[in-house]
């Protein structure tokens, strides 16, 4: 897992959800800890797609519940 990916996930999350950078830790849940609702999550996923130039199919969005999930998922995508 790359620190670079974590930092970029953090940057996007801070921008999209208007949260403080220190709140964006690996364990943080987007909905429970970072105040995202279902529409926020859709927009956040779109922002990840833009940031990393990847495609996240709807059926895989469910895997991304925490910041750690996002970093792990994106790491695999960009590596693959």
């Amino acid at each position, binding site marked *: 897992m790359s620190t670079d990916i974590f930092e970029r996930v953090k940057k996007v999350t801070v921008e*999209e*959800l*208007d949260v403080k950078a220190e709140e964006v830790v690996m364990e943080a849940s987007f909905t429970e800890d970072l105040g995202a609702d279902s*529409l926020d999550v*859709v*927009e956040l996923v*779109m922002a990840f797609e833009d940031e990393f130039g990847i495609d996240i199919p709807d059926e895989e969005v469910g895997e991304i519940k925490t910041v750690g999930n996002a970093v792990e998922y994106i790491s695999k995508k960009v590596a693959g």
Partner: protein
Amino acid sequence: MSVLPEPSGRVVVTGVGAVTPLGTGVDVFWPKVIAGESGIRRIQQMENLELYSCQIAGEVPDFEPTDWVDKKDARRMDPFLLYAIAAATMALKDCGVELTEELKDEFGVLIGSGIGGLKSMYDQTKFIHDLKPDRVSPFFVPYMIADMASGLVSIMNDLRGPNHAVVSACSTGANAIGDAYEIIKRGDARMMMAGGSEAPVNPIGVAGFCACRAMTGRNDEPTRASRPFDRDRDGFVMGEGSGILVLEDRDHALARGAKIYCEIVGYGFSADAYHITSPHPEGRGAAKSMNMALRKAGLEPTAIDYINAHGTSTPVGDPMEVEAVKKVFGEHAYKLAVSSTKSMHGHTLGAAGAIESLICILAMRDSIMPPTINLENQDTDPLINHVPNVAQKRELNTVLNNSFGFGGHNVSLIMKKG
């Protein structure tokens, strides 16, 4: 536990809030209205202006979204929602009510928009043209639909009473106030926030109204372009903003010792049943709506001291309205005054009826009639007092506000000193 007083069937205004091309907040914009200032300028929100036949508008000059919502919402929300939230927040604060759980159940919201989130529509449609439909924001639909100002204001303040929106083009704001008045009058709510909001100054909005041939071409003289009742008028100047009133059952307001601006006493509305954009040449719908408002208020025409005209500065609309006023008021048309403040703030479309009702209320409060600026050569009946260029002091007890809209809608509201 307190018990709300029984509905009285009478409705007063206890709070006001406004976002206008003459500034944000009643204390900012009202002195400018009285001073006869123009809020019209070369459009700053758009690029490639030279492509448009109309390049001027009444833009809100001092609006900072993060004063009213958090950064996330400031970025996402359509400006028509941001203006409505700002105006509603100011109006609610102004009315000074304590929101008890009991009152929240009896407090509704009715904020209309002539169009809704047109900028959002424009921005998001680009993804379709780029063949990227999956990039459309999940917030596009909720922040574009015209009822969302009512929805958001209720959510933000936990107001659980009647809630919907009105859409009747440029009479929207007045219809919203009139309908909210009747909701309280018939006992369905004790308090309502009501008004309109509009943010049409974007490429598709300006291009669309230009295509209707409804707008001025006086691009080189922005502050002189909106000139209702003047011989050289050549179309309206678009404006943006929001006006919100807090309406309240009179006994509820009295019981809590609220500051009362005025009472709403009459609401008339009608259709021209004539043409989609042109008013009926004899103003039959306009006359009908003024007559209905007078009848429902139980007032003789001679009771009206001042009319805030729809008066958009179009060649056909202004004389039609004056003729309708003469038809309804007869000789009294020469005693009352009829001014159009659109000469200063432009035509704010769905917000117009609300911003201008608010102006009527403040005119009564301060005993002053706001002017029609740029009125150099009056070409309507010369005996009508349009309050040319300079405000006039006069004791005002009862005033009427007219708003007319594409589709042939006509609305007249009568307000009386409380």
